[in-house]
């Protein structure tokens, strides 16, 4: 069974390559569907496969850049990417990320920064989950009221509409975003991307998890456009991140390429599934992913307060994340297959 293992030329470890492909498929599906890199899912997976931690982050980012590029290509053909919005947001993201990263280095000198960052992450995830589920509840309430009045329910209606208030700010230059379908001050996406980039820099994450809901709730992107545009950003920032980590000698390109083979197929499945799962279906699944991520971060915090729980919590949080990846990937795959079957059957029916 030696053929199932491949030697990583840089780190010198032998890795079970089908595991890398499976991990790539899972993260590709979820990334293509939600519009995020998914570093929080890949790192524990790589760890389990026996990957040295020194190389895990760099390898993950390198694979993330390639995977996001594949997803962006597919989303772009669906018209889900607003390139103008993406380019404007990159300016804010890069500036915010660099300032956040510098700030965290400054905070490190004070000490205890790790705990502060983890608690900040938990609070942020709770806020995102609240925002998503409050939005879903508000939409359902609106629909219920309309049905009670005997009026038609607008399929394109949304719950939380904070973006409408932000769009009233007419600070020049005003920019029209064709794919996203709205006009707003260029300062709005710059400011929001700066804030999300700053948070990502402080928390040491890619930022897709924060940027995707920010694009929906603060900038006013339809869910599909938020997913596609966010992936466009992840592809570019991921390439920059890959260059940084590789220059520090922390990337195992062979592993990244093996993962990309799985991610190429997974990203297609995840992206095509957005065709069949409507905007609010994506938001609900995203909310569940955020809750799972939040619980795993809390599990990693417990050993700091309760002695002797380190091993149990490490195993539990890794199991939770990998279980979540498997369950969400399976859900997305099943929905994609069902949708494709219906579309093919409808096509045959028309012919």
């Amino acid at each position, binding site marked *: 069974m030696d053929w199932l293992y491949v030697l990583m030329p840089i780190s010198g470890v032998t890795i079970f390559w089908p595991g890398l492909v499976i991990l790539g498929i899972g993260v590709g599906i979820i990334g293509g569907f939600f519009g995020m890199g998914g570093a929080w899912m890949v790192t524990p997976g790589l760890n389990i496969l026996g990957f040295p931690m020194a190389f895990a982050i760099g390898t993950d980012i390198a694979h993330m850049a390639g995977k996001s590029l*594949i997803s962006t*290509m597919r989303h772009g053909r669906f018209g889900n990417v607003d390139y103008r919005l993406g380019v404007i947001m990159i300016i804010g993201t890069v500036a915010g990320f660099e300032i956040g990263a510098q700030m965290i280095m400054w905070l490190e000198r004070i000490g205890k920064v790790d705990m502060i960052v983890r608690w900040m992450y938990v609070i942020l995830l709770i806020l995102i989950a609240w925002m998503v589920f409050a939005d879903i509840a508000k939409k359902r309430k609106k629909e219920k009221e309309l049905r009670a009045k005997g009026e038609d329910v607008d399929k394109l*209606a949304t719950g939380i509409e904070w973006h409408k208030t932000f769009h009233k700010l007419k600070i020049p230059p005003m920019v029209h975003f064709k794919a996203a379908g709205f006009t707003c001050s260029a300062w709005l996406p710059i400011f929001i991307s700066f804030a999300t980039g700053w948070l990502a820099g402080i928390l040491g994450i890619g930022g897709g998890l924060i940027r995707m809901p920010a694009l929906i709730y603060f900038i006013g992107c339809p869910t599909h456009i938020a997913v596609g545009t966010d992936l466009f950003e992840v592809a570019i920032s991921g390439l920059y991140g890959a260059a940084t980590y590789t220059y520090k000698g922390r990337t195992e390109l062979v592993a990244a390429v093996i993962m990309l083979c799985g991610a190429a197929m997974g990203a*297609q499945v995840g992206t095509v599934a957005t*065709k069949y799962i409507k905007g*609010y279906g994506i938001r609900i699944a995203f909310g569940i992913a955020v809750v799972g991520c939040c619980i795993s971060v809390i599990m990693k915090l417990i050993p700091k307060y309760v002695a002797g729980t380190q091993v149990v919590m490490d195993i539990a949080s890794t199991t939770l994340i990998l279980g979540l990846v498997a369950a969400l990937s399976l859900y997305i795959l099943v929905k994609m297959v069902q949708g494709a079957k219906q579309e093919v059957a409808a096509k045959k029916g028309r012919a």
Partner: protein
Amino acid sequence: MYKLWTKLAGLAAAAALVLPGVALAAGEKASLLVIVADTRKLTGWEAWFANLYNESHIYFTIVTVVAIPIIGVILGVLADLVMSHIGIDLKSRELSEH
């Protein structure tokens, strides 16, 4: 005289124990340490690749940053070809909300 030699020997021993720590503290962080790939067991492209890593991180970075998008595009196009055989419309979708 014996006491002086004892003190000097004690100080030398303490210095021997403390100095590496001082030297390490004055040096770079552990995260900035250089990792060297072991090329002894490698042959062919693997040896070339590991040597490239050992000799120049700049060239290694350039190769990685160029390879990732190229491989991504190739795999993306191949996956596209597979998906196009399913028979679904891969160029448009229904508007879902606002």
